[in-house]
Every structure is written in C-alpha cells, then in structure tokens.
C-alpha cells in the first residue's frame, strides 16, 4: 500500500490498517494532502485547509478509538475552534471560530481529526453550490456540472477521494441531494438526533447535521460518534443512541418498503426512473416486500418549505449586522446605514432573496396567510408520514429527479432550483430521517453521472434505513465506482476551469 492508494480507501478499511500499524495517522494526513493538492484545483471542494494542526493532532492520535486517526472534512458552516467558518459568505470574511461545535467535540472524542472546511451554497441556501460567494465546486464525474448542494463541497470531496468522510448539514436535502449527484452516501438524521450547537443556523426547525461517506458502514460509524443528547441544544433528543453498526445485515426478509405513488411524477428523468425501478426489484429480491403507499400532501411540501425555511432564516440571519463579527461596511453615517450597507455588500443574491421572502411572510398582515398556514400544512405532511409508517418500515424514492445539471442551467430561475428538492424536503418538514445511496448511472454527453436512491425512515429509526441501505449496497457495485478524474497537467488548471459566473 503506497501513499497514492490510501485516499481511495473507506473509513472502515483505514481503521484496520491503522490498528495493524500498517499505516500511521500522519501518513493518512500526508496522503490526503497529496491528493487534495493534485485534484482540488479542478474540483474546488475546500474553502480552507489546516494540515499543520491536523498533523500535530495525528501525532498523538489513539487509533483504538472508534474513529481514531481518521481525518474528517467539515462543511464550512460548522464551527471548528481556531478555523475560519465562512458559510461561503462575504459577510463572515475574517471570522475565526472561537469554539468547537458539539459534533466537532464528539468527533474529537471519538479520535477523528478535522482538517479542512468544505464549500457550500452561501449559508446552505441552494441546491448546486453555485451560490457560494467564495468559489465554484465541480462535480468530479463531469467538471462542467454542479456537485449539488448545499453540501456540495463535502460530497465532491468524498467522491473525488479528497476526504474519507465528511460532515454536511441538511435543511431540505442539502446532504442527500449532493450525495446523490456525486455518487456517495449521505444521511440526514432525525431532527434532534444530532446536536446543532455550533452549526450556523439557517432554519432552526429543519437543520440537521449528518455524515457524507463512501459506504453505508462508514455513515453508521460517524453516526455512532456524533448522535446523542446535548445540554447546549434544547432540541437534541435524549433518546438512547443505538449501535448503528450492529444493525447492518445483508438480508431484508420481513422488511416492508413503501413506494409513494405521489413521487412518481412526470418530471423524473427517464434514466433516473429506470435506475430506481431496478433498485426496487433488487430490494425485492433481497427479501423486502414492496407496497404502494400514498402521501397526499406531497404536492404542498416545496411551498411549505419555502415559507418556513425563509421565515426562520430571516430571523437567524438578523445577527449578521457588522457589529460582532465578520464584514462591516465602511464609514456608516448611522446605525441603520451600517446595517443596510453591511448586509447589502455582505450577502449574496440568494440569501437576500430568502431574507426578504421570510421577512414578508412573517410581516404584519401576512403572517396568518403564509406562515401560520404553512405550519398547519406542515402538520398534515407530518401526519401523512406517521400514517404510512404504520404500514411500512421505510419509503423509497429517487433522491433527485435528475442527475447532476450544468452550471447555470437552473441558476437563473430560483423557483426551478427549488423544485429540484421535491423528494428531499418533506423529510425535514416531518422531522424524519433519510439516506441517499448510489443506485446507478445516467449517461449524459458521454459522461457517467451518479443516481441516488433515497430511503426515508420513521423518527429515530436511523438503524433501520442504514440496515436496508447496507443490504442494498452490499448486493451492488455502484458504491465501488470512482469518478474518472485525473490529476490534470498544471497548464490546464485555471485555463479551462474558470469559475462559472455567479447567478444573480
């Protein structure tokens, strides 16, 4: 095993190498560094890297801990002490996190080493990472396409072997959709399963942190480390955390899977539909019973989401005012001028749009018509899921109706971008857990583009969807496919890879 082979490995394989002392944590960091330096000029997954600190931590890593010596990439919206936390926004220019998020403390306790911060749509608002104010991230399977979003940097890094595993955050699909578009595994835990303390808040009733990994087993490993109660987050659930590794089995006898008929819409790309149909057959052949179910409120999910998420965002992002941290407009003539110009210059267009929409739906005279009504329809969506989970153990759908799209293809029309989240959004509204795993490829313009299968599970039933996902994964080879990315000759970097225009 040489340093060049190490980045392609998954966490479980690395653990055995580390524990047999065949490789050291420092060698892992150094192998990853080599890979990132060679590949990331093309992919653009990272916003910041700190190999010096990571190497020092690797020196005294205890490889017998659950994630001992394993470097983990962190979405740049989660605070890691001493590191930048930009949220891919100009408004957090220069900010250094004064503390660790609870998930980072938990990762460290499990022996993992945070070493780099990954790109995202500004404040996690977007589905393509095109809304990053700082850089473009490209899909490792086709560099002319987006990696999905908002955790596009985390998904691209794991797909391109620039990370063994990563943390993302998911407010309406932001872990699962980029995982699908990049061909990796992404888990959104039940709302409250993982502490949000230290995650910069976008929509507090929807946000959840979760793992992005190469295999389902690795997702279970990270969940074992990060799940659980936290006195610092009053919404973090106190329910005991099961051993997610123990649930991984290879057969699905007795498992009932629901196919929501409302999810079989016309907008699904035929190649995506074919892959999902084949996956359903495969799950059936592993012993699962397939049952058609109905979620009648599905057509309202996107509308409910864009009222509730923007309303919460408008309140959460009020803290960015040029006083306590980050960017501040020059020479304000009074305090309103300071706020108005700091936020004009510091926020990008999508963030401004969402704050304005959220302010509107909460404003006097419109609150009942928009926000209150959306919350009531949210309750109907939650009841839909509670009802079907009495009949089935999990639900199956595509993660995204389409494979990775081209830069700019959807950016000009915010509504079209929002509709890309149609299969993922309801899980956040209902608070349930969901996972995306690779289930095939679409062929587009001579490129193979990954397709994701989504499994949705009931509240706190992560162990069950991990079990189903693992059984499916182990019976297929999709997760073994690697993107055709090559180390580019230096002269082509920067020439053919100019950042696409940022949408307005």
């Amino acid at each position, binding site marked *: 095993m040489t340093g060049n082979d190490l980045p392609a490995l998954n966490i479980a394989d690395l653990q055995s190498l580390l524990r047999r002392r065949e490789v050291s944590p420092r060698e892992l960091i150094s192998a990853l560094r080599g890979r990132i330096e060679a590949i990331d000029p093309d992919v653009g997954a990272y916003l910041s890297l700190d190999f010096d600190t990571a190497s020092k931590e690797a020196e005294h890593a205890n490889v017998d801990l659950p994630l001992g010596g394993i470097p983990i990439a962190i979405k740049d919206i989660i605070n890691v002490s001493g590191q930048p936390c930009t949220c891919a926004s100009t408004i957090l220019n220069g900010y250094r996190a*004064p503390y660790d998020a609870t998930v980072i403390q938990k990762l460290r306790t499990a022996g993992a080493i945070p070493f780099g911060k990954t790109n995202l749509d500004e404040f996690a608002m977007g589905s393509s990472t095109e809304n990053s104010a700082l850089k473009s991230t490209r899909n490792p399977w086709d560099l002319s396409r987006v990696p999905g979003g908002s955790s596009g940097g985390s998904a691209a890094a794991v797909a391109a072997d620039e990370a063994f595993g990563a943390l993302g955050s998911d407010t309406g699909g932001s872990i699962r959709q980029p995982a699908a578009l990049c061909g990796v595994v992404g888990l959104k835990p039940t709302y409250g399963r993982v502490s949000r303390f230290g995650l910069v808040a976008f929509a507090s009733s929807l946000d959840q942190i979760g793992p992005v990994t190469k295999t389902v087993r690795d997702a279970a490993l990270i969940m074992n480390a990060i799940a659980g109660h936290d006195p610092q987050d009053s919404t973090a659930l106190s329910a005991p955390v099961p051993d997610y590794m123990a649930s991984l089995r290879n057969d699905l006898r007795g498992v009932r899977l629901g196919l929501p008929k409302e999810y079989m819409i016309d907008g699904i790309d035929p190649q995506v539909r074919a892959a999902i149909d084949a996956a359903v057959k495969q799950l059936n052949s592993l012993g699962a019973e397939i049952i058609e179910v109905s979620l009648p409120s599905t057509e309202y999910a*996107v509308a409910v989401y864009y009222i509730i998420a923007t309303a919460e965002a408008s309140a959460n992002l009020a803290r960015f005012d040029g006083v306590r941290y980050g960017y501040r407009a020059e020479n304000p003539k009074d305090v309103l001028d300071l706020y108005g110009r700091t936020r004009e210059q510091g926020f990008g267009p999508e963030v401004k749009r969402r704050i304005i929409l959220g302010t509107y739906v909460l404003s006097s005279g419109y609150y009942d018509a928009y926000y209150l009504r959306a919350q009531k329809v949210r309750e109907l969506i939650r009841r839909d899921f509670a009802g079907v989970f009495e009949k089935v153990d999990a639900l199956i759908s595509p993660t995204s109706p389409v494979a990775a799209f081209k830069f700019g293809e959807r950016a000009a029309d915010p509504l079209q971008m929002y509709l890309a989240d149609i299969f993922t959004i309801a899980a956040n509204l209902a608070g349930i857990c969901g996972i995306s795993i690779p289930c095939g490829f679409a062929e587009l313009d001579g490129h193979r583009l990954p397709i994701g299968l989504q499994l949705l599970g009931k509240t706190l039933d992560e162990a069950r969807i991990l079990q189903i996902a693992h059984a499916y994964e182990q019976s297929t080879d999709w997760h073994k496919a690697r993107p055709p990315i090559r180390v580019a000759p230096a002269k082509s970097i920067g020439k053919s890879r100019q950042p696409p225009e940022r949408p307005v």
Partner: protein
Amino acid sequence: MAGTSNLDVGYVARLARINLTEDEAKIFQKQLGDVLNYVEKLGRVDVAGIEAAAHALPVFNVFREDAPRDWFTAELALSNAPRQTNGLFIVPKVVE
C-alpha cells in the same frame, strides 16, 4: 391567501435592513412574485381544526441545570469584532 401584488420588495428589504440597488429590487420583485404565485397553492388546502406544527417532534419544557461553567472570555467574544475598544463593541451613535 394574500395576493402577490402586495409584495413591495423595496419596503420589505428596508424592514430586513438590506439596502438594494434599483436593478436588484426589480429582479427580486419578479422572482419572488413567481415564488409567491407558486405558494398560492397552499390556499387550497383544508386546514380547519389543524394545529400549527412549530416543530416536527413534540418536545416540551427542556431544562438543563442552571450552573455556572467556563465559557468565552470577554476578549475571545470580542476577537471577531470588526471594531472594538476597552472590551466593548463599537457601533455608530444611536441616540442623539
């Protein structure tokens, strides 16, 4: 539901303390108008007797021990401030 013609982007942006250029205001007016037209569909849902869901899971009255613990020093809390002096944040004059 409220008609979308009621959205005045310039007015709401002022409430949100975001200055907009005229061009931005014009683009946002159209784009957010489209989004508001789309969410009009919620007006068709029968929500009589449905209680609003503020959170997906029923969690109430979460307490933690009211005990002192180590946290940021004032210096650390101020370390990211664009302007500060003598342990205080500096803002423009608020009261005449």
